[in-house]
């Protein structure tokens, strides 16, 4: 019944209210949604809020389409109909122009559109990323600035909404609207209808993490509203050899104690000013190399022949935000809670790994090809990393130029470990010596183009020797062979392992199409199937993003053992922290052939210790304290703002109508007997 009435209602509205032959609402004709837009949002640390927010309901402003910096100055100087929302190319999103806009009362928001071809750099992290939680004097001194092009906007409180439009069609429609309504006689802009934009990205949280966490926990009503969530996700760890022995008959699991570990680590998150991240160079080049190393080592060392050294792969999450993932792991290690939470420092399944068990910590940082250089950063020289450097040089692939850089330490998880354990032997492999070669660090333009990635989907195609795939395979082989030699004491004499296919596929999965073979292999296709890069933003605690799950399972698949046929029993084999069992495809070429895999891989919480320590003193600045505001809607739409004259005209007409009608109706009513009485044609008695 309701439906009928509703339909009829729409019909009659159409009939009486005029105007359209289709079922649009009037609203649809007044607003153009800018669909492909993402916004900058708000985060907090212990003392500040950073990022952007609109007013509740959105910020409105007249658009001004700029192509060069002078356009921006022009409108700030000559605009008569404020407030404005400048639409600027990505190259204009600089510290300088944002400062200018912040000071101007005429600006209510900012929209950025891409112009890749002329972009020199686009990175909004700090010049010294994570400076406050780094080892002192590793950046900003001795001519070392890791991210010299960084604008630091990611960590500024911008104060007005900033949106990014990435679809060409949307940029065109904005531009057309501007040309049609705004881009002429600027003196008279006040007097006509102008094309405007509404940017809605209202953030519920404010001030800083302690404040907004407290506000989120106020139980004043039955449905407390969260205004912010701690940043957090999962760290992934996996080991080359099992950490425990498994007895097939008794199903008994016993930890293997007393082993030493070589840690191969990489970060697994990226950041961006906007609500979308890509992260091709950082972290994907390092991450993919790590996965390739895992694969090669598994092939070279399929079984533990009583080696005293095991290899531990760790992927740290949230490292862009003051190393929160590695801080948590160090915190857990100190308390005997790594790799698994224990009651009193011992576990019946797994050996408890402490920092003293780590002989060597190798971190893979940004590794895109550049000029073929790979720098080995050794913060402190010692017996272990000197020897390993020699091994790397011995086993180096011919296409690589290995160079050492002593005393330098680029931003990496190593900082967290060294701050706690000065004597840890560390190596950071990166393609830069004193500053990033990556001009798009932690931004949306750190995409496949940035690392010159091209997907080769036919195996017979000739692969250029300077391709990123080739380069990463060479690095992975070099590292793997060195680790092989370190673990076994014997040099690996056979040729390189050809992993081109795997690396090619991995990069494709992470950078271009989520619905790729590898994700099908591990049976974890993301829910949102889209041919978009994987979103590598750390996200908020309790809402683990797809990326970390996928990467974890791929790592598990690469280091896992086939223990039997694939069947239901496989996943029913008693799960514990030492082993996990999954049915997965045997390889990428045979997706339908599945086997039962046993993997030594698991996730640990990557939430800063600041959020789990009872009564943590926020001013102590010991741990990362980033949290993210919650928000409702995030959208942008174009509309036509009526001129003041038009508004006053409507109001005047309306007011005249109501005043006169009151007068006239009163008059008619008081004279109705004369007006409507046929007899009243004769003059009525004066005294009646």
């Amino acid at each position, binding site marked *: 019944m309701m439906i009928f009435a509703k339909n009829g209602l729409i019909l009659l509205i159409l009939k009486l209210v005029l105007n359209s032959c289709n079922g649009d609402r009037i609203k649809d004709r007044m607003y153009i949604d800018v669909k492909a837009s993402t916004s900058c949002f708000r985060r907090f640390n212990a003392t500040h809020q950073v990022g952007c927010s609109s007013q509740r309901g959105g910020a409105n402003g007249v658009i001004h389409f700029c192509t060069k910096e002078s356009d921006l100055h022009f409108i700030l100087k000559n605009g008569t109909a404020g407030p404005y929302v400048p639409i600027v190319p990505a190259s204009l999103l600089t510290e300088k122009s944002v400062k200018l806009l912040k000071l101007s009362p005429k600006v209510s928001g900012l929209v950025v559109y891409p112009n890749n071809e002329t972009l020199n750099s686009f990175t909004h992290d700090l010049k010294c990323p994570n400076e406050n939680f780094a080892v002192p004097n590793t950046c900003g001194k001795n001519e070392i600035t890791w991210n010299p092009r960084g604008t630091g906007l990611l960590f500024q409180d911008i104060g007005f909404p900033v949106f990014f439009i990435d679809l060409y069609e949307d940029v065109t429609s904005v531009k057309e609207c501007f040309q049609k309504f705004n881009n002429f006689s600027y003196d008279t802009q006040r007097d006509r209808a102008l094309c405007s934009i509404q940017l809605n990205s209202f953030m519920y949280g404010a001030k800083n993490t302690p404040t907004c966490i407290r506000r989120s926990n106020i139980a004043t009503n039955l449905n407390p509203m969260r205004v912010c969530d701690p940043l957090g996700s999962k760290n992934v760890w996996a080991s080359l050899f099992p950490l425990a022995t498994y007895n097939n008959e008794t199903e008994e699991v016993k930890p293997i104690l007393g082993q030493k570990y070589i840690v191969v680590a990489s970060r697994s998150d990226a950041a961006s000013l906007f609500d979308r991240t890509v992260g091709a160079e950082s972290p994907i080049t390092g991450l993919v190399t790590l996965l390739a190393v895992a694969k090669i080592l598994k092939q070279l060392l399929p079984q533990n022949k009583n080696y005293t050294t095991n290899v531990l792969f760790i992927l740290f999450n949230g490292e862009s935000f003051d190393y929160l993932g590695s801080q948590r792991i160090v915190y857990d290690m100190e308390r005997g809670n790594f790799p698994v939470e224990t009651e009193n420092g011992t576990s019946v399944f797994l050996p408890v790994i402490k920092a003293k068990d780590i002989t060597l910590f190798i971190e893979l940082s940004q590794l895109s090809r550049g000029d073929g250089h790979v720098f080995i950063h050794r913060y402190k020289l010692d017996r272990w990393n000197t020897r390993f450097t020699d091994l790397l040089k011995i086993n180096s692939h011919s296409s690589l130029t290995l160079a050492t850089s002593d005393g330098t330490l680029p931003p990496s998880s190593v900082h967290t470990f060294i701050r706690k354990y000065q004597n840890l032997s560390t190596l950071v492999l990166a393609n830069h010596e004193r500053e990033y070669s990556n001009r798009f660090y932690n931004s949306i333009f750190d995409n496949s183009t940035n690392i010159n990635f091209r997907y080769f989907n036919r195996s017979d195609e000739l692969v250029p020797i300077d391709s990123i795939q080739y380069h990463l395979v060479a690095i992975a082989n070099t590292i793997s062979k060195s680790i092989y030699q370190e673990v076994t004491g014997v040099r690996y004499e056979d040729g390189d392992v050809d992993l081109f296919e795997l690396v090619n596929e991995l990069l494709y999965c992470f950078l271009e199409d989520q619905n790729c073979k590898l994700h099908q292999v591990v049976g974890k296709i993301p829910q949102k199937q889209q041919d978009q890069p994987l979103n590598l933003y750390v996200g908020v605690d309790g809402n683990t993003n797809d990326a970390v799950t996928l990467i974890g399972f791929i790592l598990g698949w690469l280091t896992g053992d086939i223990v039997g046929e694939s069947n239901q029993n496989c996943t029913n084999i008693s799960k514990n922290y030492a082993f996990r069992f999954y049915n997965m495809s045997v390889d990428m070429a045979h997706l339908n052939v599945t086997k039962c895999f046993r993997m030594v891989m698991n996730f640990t919480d990557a939430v800063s210790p600041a959020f789990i320590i009872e009564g943590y003193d926020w001013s102590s600045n010991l741990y990362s304290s980033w949290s993210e505001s919650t928000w409702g809607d995030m959208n942008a739409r174009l509309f036509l703002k009526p001129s003041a004259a038009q508004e006053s005209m*409507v109001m005047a007409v309306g007011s005249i109508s109501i005043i006169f009608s009151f007068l006239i109706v009163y008059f008619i009513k008081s004279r109705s007997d004369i*007006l409507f009485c046929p007899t009243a044609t004769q003059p009525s008695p004066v005294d009646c």
Partner: protein
Amino acid sequence: MTVVEFVGCMFLAFGPPFAMFVFTIAHDPVRIIILIAAAFFWLLSLLLSSFWWFIVFPLRKDLVFGLIFSVIFQEAFRGVIYKILRRAQVGLTKITDDTTTLIENKHILAYVSGLGFGIMSGAFSLINVLADAVGPGTMGIKSGNEMFFITSSATTLCFILLHTFWSVIFFDALDKKNNFQLIAIVLSHMLVSCLTLLNKYQVYSATIVPISFICGLTGLFAFKVAGGSYNSFKSCLVFR
């Protein structure tokens, strides 16, 4: 932002009906009841139109089809109100204080029910538009122009007034069994409604000018039907 436009449009469309309500309806409970009843009957006609539109699914896209039948249903329900009011008249006289005027001047009932009809139809046609007028934007970014809201309001005002006039003439026609008047009413309703179809070409003057002209003519006719004349008009202007 354009809350100003919203208020302006609302004043334009609903100001005169409000004034009429305040001065001519509000003092008498019986009139209020009749007004509400008439509004309810307009809703019933809407419901029936929707049923009809829903049943004849091949023509759902055709605005003209729905429009014509909607007009027919509205006029039919005007007839129903007439029947009911004439039947109820005796009962009404018992409960009203104002017996003499309600009974002696049959046009009052017609006027009150017509206004109820008009107010409800006006509300349904304009409220959705007004709801969208509150936002920051105005019409014209894709198509249409800035005059959209004000012409919509003016059209709505015309329709409210027209419904009032039509009811007065319609009741009179039925009282006097004047079929010519009856047909004229239905035709003029049809004509005015069809004129609104021109709005899709966005030449608003093409609709608003003829509609207000017809509204004026119908008003004069209703004035005459209700007993007014040029002389009475003149004499009412004379100050006593």
